[in-house]
């Protein structure tokens, strides 16, 4: 499972402006709707449902919201770097400024888990996060995400 299988260059938002967790998820759902062709509302409610079980803000300014939809045909990833950190109810109470969104079809058991584990591992790496925070160019962000992950795989 490579990060490049999950995310395409136009799935990266370099400067997302949001003031709250809800708004950020709404904006991401909207963008995801354009990419996947799914209704925005269904995407948003799937994400919110998952947040209710426990926050996906995993600490150190990172959030990995995710969810499953029966109507999706494949895994989709989206990355957003926020202009201003927002409160995300993260486990360490710190504001979040890097969000990796992962959407999966209902039937994708092992692939979904592998992808989540991959993203989680990628964003636990503090140097990578610092580099991501220091860039506001979508292409550069994409390159960072894919290259870092690929250099580990090698």
């Amino acid at each position: 499972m490579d990060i490049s299988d999950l995310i395409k260059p136009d799935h990266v938002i370099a400067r997302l402006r949001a003031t709250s967790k809800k708004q950020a998820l709404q904006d991401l759902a909207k963008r995801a709707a354009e990419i996947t062709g799914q209704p925005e509302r269904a995407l948003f409610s799937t994400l919110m449902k998952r947040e209710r079980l426990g926050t996906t803000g995993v600490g150190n300014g990172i959030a990995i919201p995710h969810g499953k939809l029966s109507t999706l045909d494949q895994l989709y990833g989206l990355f957003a770097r926020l202009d201003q950190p927002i409160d995300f109810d993260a486990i360490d109470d710190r504001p979040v400024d890097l969000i990796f969104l992962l959407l999966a079809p209902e039937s994708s058991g092992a692939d979904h888990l592998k992808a989540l584990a991959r993203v989680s591992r990628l964003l636990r790496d503090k140097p990578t996060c610092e580099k991501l925070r220091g860039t506001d160019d979508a292409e550069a962000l994409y390159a960072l995400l894919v290259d870092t992950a690929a250099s580990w795989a090698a």
Partner: protein
Amino acid sequence: MLQAMNFAILIGAGLIAVSALTSLAAQRAGAPLLLVFLAIGLLAGEDGLLGIEFDSGPTAYFIGTLALSIILFDSGFETPTRSFRAAAGPAITLATIGVVLTTSLVGATAHLLLGIGWLKGLLLGSIVASTDAAAVFFLLRVGGITLRDRVKSTLEIESGSNDPMAIFLTALLADLVVAAPDPSADLGWQLAANFSLQMGLGLLAGVIGGLAIAWLLDRLSDLEAGLYPITALAAALMLVAATALVGGSGFLAAYVAGVVAGNRRVRFAARLRRFQIGMTWLAQIGMFLTLGLLATPSEFGFAILPGLGLAAILIFIARPLAVWLCLLPFGFSARETAFVAWVGLRGAVSILLAILPSLAGVPDGGFYFNIVFIMVLTSLLVQGWTIPLTARRLHQIVPLRSSLVNRVELELPGDTELELVGYRIHPDSAIARGERVPRWARPVLIVRNEHAHSIHNAGPLRPQDEAYLFSSPRRVQILDKIYGSPVEPDDPAIFGDFALQAGTTLAELAHHYGAVVESPTPPETTLGSLLMSKFRNQPAVGDRMTLGPVEIVVRALKEDDSVAKVGVVLAPERRRRLRRWWPWRRLQTRLSVLRPRRQPRRS
């Protein structure tokens, strides 16, 4: 005459001082300290540098018995009832059935390998059948690791309570070897009766003695402060001797009395503890030094190969097998079982018991002593040295999160329980960020750059200040949240990639992460209640269970010790396939019928 006496004092005290000082170097090297004490004893002995000739088995046994009584009383005293609630079942099974299993396995191997008779083989097995309380306690507490609760309690209680069993078996087998048993039919009955008498009396004496010691200490408030802990210790030693004189197990009585007295709120418990810490150290050093002195390395020649061979059998086969069988009904994970098996340290008790055959008149008693000595050395070296490493690799360590730097129990009249606690202020802590803290949680004293300031003239608090305040022991956990780092542990290998509320149901977990439970657990079961029942309402942070492709972990507990947050581990490390092995699983289901009913929670 006086010269000789002074010389003896000089040597004795010198050895103890050297042992104590060596602890510094040994800790830095990670060497098991008790091994170092033993080595110093060997070096000072007849084949070593000082060439001290000491070969009096009875004297060594006398010193060892005294020392062991002190160590066992103290280890009982330091074992809170909480540990028993978490681990009494597995620990007692290990301390009884486990000892018998180890004895038989090592005995059978010795019989086959060394070509000695069955009884002699079993005698050898029983000598090395108990784990050493001193070694286990020491390595688990001082080794600088924080073990997960249930595993730690199991190991500590096991090591404190299995000596009486091993002593009983050794004494019995030694008698049988000496007086070649006439194969009368009622031997089994005699055995059973003898066993019940020893253990029953030991238990009874321990409980009564413990209550009596606590009662006595509570009524002696006028006693001179320095005499107080001495009275307690003397009473404990009297109890050991008296119990043994009437035919009970004195060591069992010492341990039980320690547990009973230690868990009743005796007055001046703090003072008693401080004294006992010192006494236990002295007892350990004394015992290991004496046993090291007693040994004669030049006689080891013939014992080296059999000793190493049997030690390997003990470490890699007998102990793991016995532990595995004993822990089957208690739902330990493969990693937990493996760790318990590895911490089967043999120590002074085994060497002490190896003197017993000679004392009982078994021909060729030195044979046992030398082989056992090699086995103990091997166990201390191989297992003792690798405990922190093994604990880490088997994920048995919980990161220590407290920023508590100092904790002093205060002795106040009446029932007031107060401690003076000191915290180093974490830069991200609630108090450093200027949040409001409850009145009772405000510091009274600030230590900054090694100078003490009262809170009134310390000015604003700074990170790295040490804040001191008075607190009841129950509030220490809350204080940790105020003064310590607010960050939840984020090592995903231990606490999972994502945190879920305990109210998340199995169905929801299955939807998101494909987790499955094989048994007929209803899908609306919450993860919290699943973990509660898996760990018998005694969950500890870090406890985990496998659900299909993922693992769930207890992340945080509520005030009432129920599960508050659960972590999901997405890519659990490949654990050994042992669990899916069918006979194991079938046995587990069968034995689960035998599991004790869940205990009602304490109020």
